[in-house]
């Protein structure tokens, strides 16, 4: 397929996944912040500030005032604000722009679904959200809309090369963002162990899992009890959870292999293959070592390198 088209499809995958991640993180953080602000306002504040590290070049475009709820500037910045390159609005817009430029490579259902989400984000931007329940409602609707697009991609597109590039973008973005969420929140969480306020402590672990849509999946494997080591192991090394780093690296590796054919080992395939092997075979040693910040830095770095290598291999010809 055309390199330009593959490039656009890859980015549609990335932007859709990014929009979904932002939506989920906003909903989860808003829950957490409402729940904890009376108990420990600093924790609520930190949770919001984390957004700026999970999306490293994002900038808060609204002012924080003592009169409005803490959530509002963050919600506006990351939901409707076009000036923030990591808002839902920005990501959906970009996904649609890319879709418009390769419309013939998408099914009608995909385009219609994407166009619909785009139009509802536009409407929310125009109308604005008067209060937190309105934000929540709007985010919920957008979340559903994004899943509709993803479903349309899955069930109406031929699973051919174009689809693989889209899924490649999706899995790379997912792993990259999950790694950043973990990198941002895990060290603080591990350090907080000593504080002793147990319910609050577990609320944070719960938020971490929910932020990576893994709470229910975790419970299904390990039951309701949140054991930090089990949670970390689950989020990093689980074989079946779609948001674990190991699963993500395997997905990127598999889509790359399907694109190039099994015989060829391309530059991006080498990078992701090595990373996957670490996550797949070195899990126990990593858990023993406990240097999660170091591991996560490496994951983030290798994924960035994989992206660059993909661009060189397929998009710049």
């Amino acid at each position, binding site marked *: 397929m055309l*390199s330009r088209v593959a490039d656009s499809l890859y980015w549609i995958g990335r932007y859709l996944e990014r929009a979904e991640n932002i939506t989920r993180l906003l909903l989860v953080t808003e829950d957490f912040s409402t729940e904890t602000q009376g108990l420990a306002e600093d924790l609520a504040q930190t949770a919001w500030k984390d957004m700026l590290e999970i999306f490293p070049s994002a900038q808060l475009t609204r002012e924080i005032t003592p009169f409005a709820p803490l959530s509002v500037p963050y919600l506006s910045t990351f939901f409707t604000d076009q000036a923030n390159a990591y808002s839902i609005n920005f990501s959906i817009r970009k996904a649609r722009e890319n879709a*418009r430029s390769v*419309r013939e490579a998408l099914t009608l259902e995909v385009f219609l679904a994407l166009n619909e989400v785009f139009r509802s984000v536009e409407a929310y931007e125009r109308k604005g959200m008067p209060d937190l329940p309105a934000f929540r409602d709007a985010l919920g609707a957008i979340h559903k809309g994004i899943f509709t697009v993803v479903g349309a991609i899955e069930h109406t597109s031929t699973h051919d090369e174009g689809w693989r590039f889209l899924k490649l973008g999706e899995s790379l973005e997912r792993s990259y963002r999950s790694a950043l969420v973990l990198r941002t929140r895990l060290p603080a969480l591990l350090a907080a162990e000593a504080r002793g306020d147990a319910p609050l402590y577990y609320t944070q672990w719960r938020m971490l899992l929910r932020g990576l849509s893994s709470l229910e999946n975790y419970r299904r494997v390990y039951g309701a009890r949140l054991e930090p080591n089990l949670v970390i192991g689950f989020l990093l090394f689980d074989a079946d959870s779609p948001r674990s780093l190991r699963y993500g690296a395997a997905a990127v590796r598999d889509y790359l292999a399907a694109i190039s054919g099994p015989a060829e080992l391309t530059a991006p395939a080498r990078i992701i293959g090595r990373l996957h092997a670490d996550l797949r075979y070195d899990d126990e040693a990593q858990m023993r070592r406990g240097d999660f910040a170091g591991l996560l830095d490496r994951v983030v770095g290798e994924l960035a390198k994989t992206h660059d290598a993909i661009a060189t291999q397929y998009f710049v010809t």
Partner: protein
Amino acid sequence: MPEKKAFDEAFDKKGTARQHYRPLVSILESFTQGEIERRERLQKLSLMDQGITFTVYGQKEGTERIFPFDFVPRVIPSREWERLQAGLVQRVTALNLFILDVYQGQKCLKDRIIPPEIVLSRKEYKRELLNVIPPRQIFTHVVGTDIIRNGAGEYLVLEDNCRCPSGVSYVLENRNTLNRVFPEFFKYYPVRPIKDYPTLLLDTLLHAAPRFSEKPVVVILTPGMANSAYFEHSFLAREMGVVLVEGRDLIVEDNYVFMRTTQGKQKVDVIYRRVDDDFIDPLTFRRDSLLGVPGLMNVYREGNVGLANAPGAGVADDKSVYAFMPELIRYYLGEDELVIKTTGDSGGYGMLMGPFAAKKEIETYLAQVKKNPGNYIAQPLVELSAHPTYSDGKFEGRRIDLRPFILYGASVRVLPGGLTRVALRPGSYVVNSSQGGGSKDTWVLADKNA
């Protein structure tokens, strides 16, 4: 009403519905106002949801608008269409022979059928292409001819578009929309289907391949997303299942054209280019063009790629050439011009349809007239027929034209339908989408006795 002088498509002078409009009128009368409004809302929503839009130039980059659609269909009875079709086939056949002649031999110029200076001085005439003849001698693979009806209801040709006529995607989408929003309309009419246009177009393009390779690779070349007809380019690529390329996706090597793919370079055999001649190859034509493919014309000259329409074809859709159509048809085909007539039948040097021209066009034109007044004639404006149109809650006459699409492949075929554009403002003659025009579904009826 300002449309009084116009021929009314649906009602005769006494105000009685013409026979082929009677069922439609009674269906519409059976709807309540509220029902019609509900359907109209549905229809607008469906256009926006599907992104059936065109891009407006001169505004913020990438501004999209929907092309307004009027749900009252235009109905053309089968016998009327048979005549139109015969006229169009004749016309396109003659136009193609004329272009072929201009680039090889120039007999018509030597025989003074048309004054040579009229042809040779046009910028659409490409001297670089003399004796460069496309595969199977076809220049005009896709033609859109603009037709109007005068006060007496006669069909007249306003202009031929032999370069890259657009609008066919709206023809197909209008039918889809009407099917969905007013399914009742179709119950009483044998409307001829148009959905196979993409298949016919693909056949036509395959026929333009330089040599009969087993499976020629066809692509559509678009100027890109910012182009006003981008929706159509993408639509046709999707419908035909071919790759939509931009200039930067193509590369010329060893006198062949290739596209850049994820698996390396792939050879291209036929390019349905929706980019004008002037922009197609910066090495041959406009050097500042970023839309084209450097070296493409050399590949074409070598006979290694088919281009549709062929470069140079624009020489036939010049308004001054158009005035000589009756003579050209007689010259090449030995026939009289069929039912559809040329509007001004004495030769004029360029023509300006006041109400159809852009302001800048008028200014340039006036400057030319002042410089050389002897070369110009003035004519009263030709009427356009009027058609019932739903506007502000009521049905009123609005002026319309018609652009049928003609494909020249193994044979010359006319799509049974076309783009009916409508001037949505009362009294207006301007049917252009960028200036308050809209469009209608166009029904060609099957002959029930055939």
